């Protein structure tokens, strides 16, 4: 039954009032793609309002849009040619609605860029051209519209063609064709125009059918960003399914896989599906799921790659081109959220290399912030390493967005990883130590006096495994032993209220930072500080340890241990007798240097 026709999304872009909606309206009308009565209905409406009919009105389905007279969002319309079905996305040309234009264009495989013959190339003609290049749209046709207003003169068309071609060349775009049209009068829409005998190229309709649909390149390296890990045990299903969409390449049952950034490895046991015959392979484009040979622990967001292929980069720093849509500018040092494939991590803008004026295509190198509608080359740094590819290698895993205050405010493409010794965290520690007037009472003197060294004890493990009770029992016991001990029980919720944000990713990071800074003060004062935290990962743990330096950090894991070797000091089982568990920890503290036997416990 699969005799389905090919479908293609085409976006219409260009400067405001250059005639995008008119072009679409005309196209729909002339190809008979409008619902019965729609044309008449709109014509009647115009008559009632004593307004001349325009083809653009056909698209303005929403009332408030008509009131403003401009397309405020990307609307979709459908039409068919003999070759395939098209979804036409009408993107607003007004700069205020750039984010809507991007939304529309990001869904397209091809673009028609409209330029007003009379007005010529305008700021957004260039900006939109640049955005097409940015978004990776290779199929572009330029329509020089309103030829009727310039007397259908070939010189006007040729001049725009020459100038705009030169511009596109600068941004590495080569258009498929330039077409002179009049959308209002219907010239060169579905066939040749009597008014322009000098033009012998194809019409708009023909240009649509020339667009090439990109075929997935199955030869590229396999990339499978983990969306989620499902185990529907309650419904009697014991499969542990790693689910997501194959963004690139292919994979077969039996293939060895590696997860990044964690570098954990396993092998594909099965390809899972519902209402499907048994599969042994998955390939780019499929939303699917796998079971693995070993029960490894990874979080959503990691990228699964093949061991035998080139793996993604893993780095906390990268160079990228970004465009900014946020009402607030993108500034250095502020915490944002990065979303790349299914990874979400805190990110800061580390450096601005240059800001491009999209309309003029000239670089400005001395800006210290990226303003709304700017395009910039920047260095970003994440709190923990992320896995990615360079956009020209595998574009699906080389693109990201930046979230500020709940909203997607920027989009970016990664040019290269940056390998740099100096992390923001180590820079911060350096600055902190520089500005810190240390007490003359040395840690050694304090330890002598208090009869123990200072330390941060982190009790971690899965949620609801009795960590808090354990931490308090330990505090109680050490207190009895006359140690200077303190249990710090601050939750994420407490931090949330400070700025009203409920962003899990950023709150998590704030929690870690605040905990680390607090621990640093209290351990510097000679205390044994106990805290508990659920599901901390190795990078967060590392950050905590660095912030707490020079005092020691002791990590106790309760229940299943997800850490690599050497990161946890003491492993404990879930449950168990409270007194025994406490004694076990105390014994460990005696063994380790914190409660040195020389300070006699």
């Amino acid at each position, binding site marked *: *039954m*699969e005799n*389905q026709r090919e*479908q293609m999304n085409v976006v219409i872009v260009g400067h405001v009032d250059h005639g995008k909606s008119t072009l679409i309206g005309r196209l729909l009308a002339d190809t008979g793609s409008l*619902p*019965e009565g729609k044309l008449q209905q709109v014509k009647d409406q115009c008559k009632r309002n004593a307004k001349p009919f325009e083809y653009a009105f056909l698209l303005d*389905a*929403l*009332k*408030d*849009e008509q009131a403003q007279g401009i397309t*405020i*969002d*990307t*609307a*979709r*319309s*459908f039409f068919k040619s003999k070759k395939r079905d098209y*979804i036409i996305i009408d993107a607003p040309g007004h700069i205020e609605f750039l*984010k*809507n234009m991007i*939304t529309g264009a*990001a*869904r397209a495989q091809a673009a028609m860029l409209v330029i007003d013959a009379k007005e010529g190339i305008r700021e957004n003609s260039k900006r939109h051209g640049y955005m097409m290049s940015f*978004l990776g749209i290779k199929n572009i046709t330029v329509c020089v519209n309103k030829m009727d207003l310039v007397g259908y003169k070939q010189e006007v068309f040729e001049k725009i063609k020459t100038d705009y071609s030169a511009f596109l060349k600068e941004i590495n775009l080569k258009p498929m064709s330039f077409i002179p049209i009049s959308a209002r009068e219907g010239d060169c829409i579905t066939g040749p125009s009597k008014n322009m005998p000098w033009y012998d190229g194809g019409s708009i309709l023909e240009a649509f059918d020339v667009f090439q649909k990109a075929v997935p390149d*199955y030869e590229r390296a396999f990339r499978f960003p983990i*969306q*989620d890990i*499902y185990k*529907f045990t309650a*419904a009697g*299903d014991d499969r542990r*399914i790693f*689910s*997501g*969409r194959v963004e690139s390449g*292919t994979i077969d049952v039996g293939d060895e896989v590696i997860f990044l950034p964690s570098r954990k490895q396993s092998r594909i046991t099965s390809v*899972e*599906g*519902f*209402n499907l015959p048994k*599969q042994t*392979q998955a*390939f780019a*484009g*499929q*939303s699917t*799921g796998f079971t693995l040979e070993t029960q490894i622990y990874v979080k959503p967001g990691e990228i699964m790659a093949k061991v035998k292929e080139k793996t993604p980069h893993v780095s906390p720093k990268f160079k990228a081109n970004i465009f900014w849509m946020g009402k607030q500018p993108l500034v250095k040092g502020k915490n944002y959220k990065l*979303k790349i494939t*299914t990874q979400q991590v805190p990110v800061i803008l580390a450096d601005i290399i240059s800001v491009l004026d999209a309309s003029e295509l000239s670089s400005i190198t001395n800006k210290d912030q990226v303003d709304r509608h700017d395009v910039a080359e920047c260095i970003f740094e994440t709190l923990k390493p992320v896995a990615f590819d360079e956009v020209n290698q595998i574009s*699906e895993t080389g693109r*990201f*967005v930046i*979230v500020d205050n*709940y*909203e*997607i405010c920027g*989009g970016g493409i990664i040019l290269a990883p940056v390998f740099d010794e100096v992390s923001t965290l180590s820079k911060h520690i350096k600055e902190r130590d520089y500005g810190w007037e240390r007490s003359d009472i040395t840690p050694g003197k304090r330890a002598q006096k208090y009869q123990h060294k200072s330390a941060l004890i982190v009790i971690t493990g899965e949620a609801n495994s009795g960590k808090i009770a354990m931490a308090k029992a330990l505090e109680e016991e050490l207190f009895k032993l006359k140690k200077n001990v303190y249990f710090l029980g601050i939750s994420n919720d407490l931090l949330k209220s400070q700025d*009203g944000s*409920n962003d899990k990713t950023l709150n998590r990071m704030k929690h870690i930072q605040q905990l680390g800074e607090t621990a640093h003060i209290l351990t510097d004062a000679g205390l044994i500080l106990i805290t508990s935290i659920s599901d901390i990962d190795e990078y967060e743990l590392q950050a905590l340890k660095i912030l707490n330096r020079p005092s020691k950090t002791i990590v106790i894991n309760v229940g299943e241990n997800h850490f690599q070797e050497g990161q946890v000091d003491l492993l404990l089982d879930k449950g168990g007798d409270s007194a025994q568990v406490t004694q076990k920890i105390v014994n460990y503290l005696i063994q380790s240097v914190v409660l040195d036997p020389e300070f006699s416990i």
Partner: protein
Amino acid sequence: MSKKTMTKLDQIEAQSVYIMREAYREFKNLAMLWSIGKDSTVLLWLARKAFFGHVPFPLVHVDTSFKVPAMIKYRDQVALEWNLNMVYGQNTEAIKNKRTFPDGAIDRISCCKSLKSEALKHTLAGDWPRYRMNHETKKYELDDNKEPYTGVIVGVRADEEGSRSKERYFSPRDRNNDWDVGDQPPELWNQFKTDFAPGTHLRIHPLLDWTELNIWEYIQRENIPIIDLYFDQGEGTRYRSLGCYPCTTPVQSTAKNVEDIVQELKTGKFANIAERSGRAQDKEDGGGLETLRLDGYM
């Protein structure tokens, strides 16, 4: 599927599944609206695709009490068979006091607003009673869970009607369910708006790219059980869009099964007739569905 090619249905299926999984990961209080119609039944099937046979969130139905009785029967049958966490809500006050269009008390649009939009708003918010299917007794019981749903998966399609063509996959609604069409979040490279301020919620639209024909082709390919009100029972008419019986009229058609419908749509018989043309409320007030949608209607 040994060849590495994806048909159009494969592609839109993969995208819908991707969207649903994003929603499931990001929203603690997630629900899916199920109107019993063809679109949301396909949506339900796609959830089973996404979650490997399971549907890990509640399905919410707004029962206006004017649905064709066969729809309610079908709903409960499927809910039991597929082990669904089935929840319904209702504007019991309005129905009890006969403040409805069929009772002659108010006009169609007001009736829709009251029995659908209002009931939906309060059922989602949790401040009106929710009734949950007990799979042991096969009866509905008052639901203890009064938490508002912060993510709501809805089966609207862009090709259905003008205002729906402007939706995002992830579309924010404020406290009053209001939709700001002019200021919608950007969506690019499969990154959606999954962060939201307290008090707001997100509508999630996995079917945005599907057409009416795609829906029926998919029902055919997957052999999805669909309510038989869509088929001609020998009287030369069938429903093309399902709603409340006082406001829904059938279309002339002799399509008796899914295959017939696919053929019928392919001939272009309905190409010039709006899919929802049998839904009387759309025609009132100059911009019926759009007016309703700004107010929280699906």
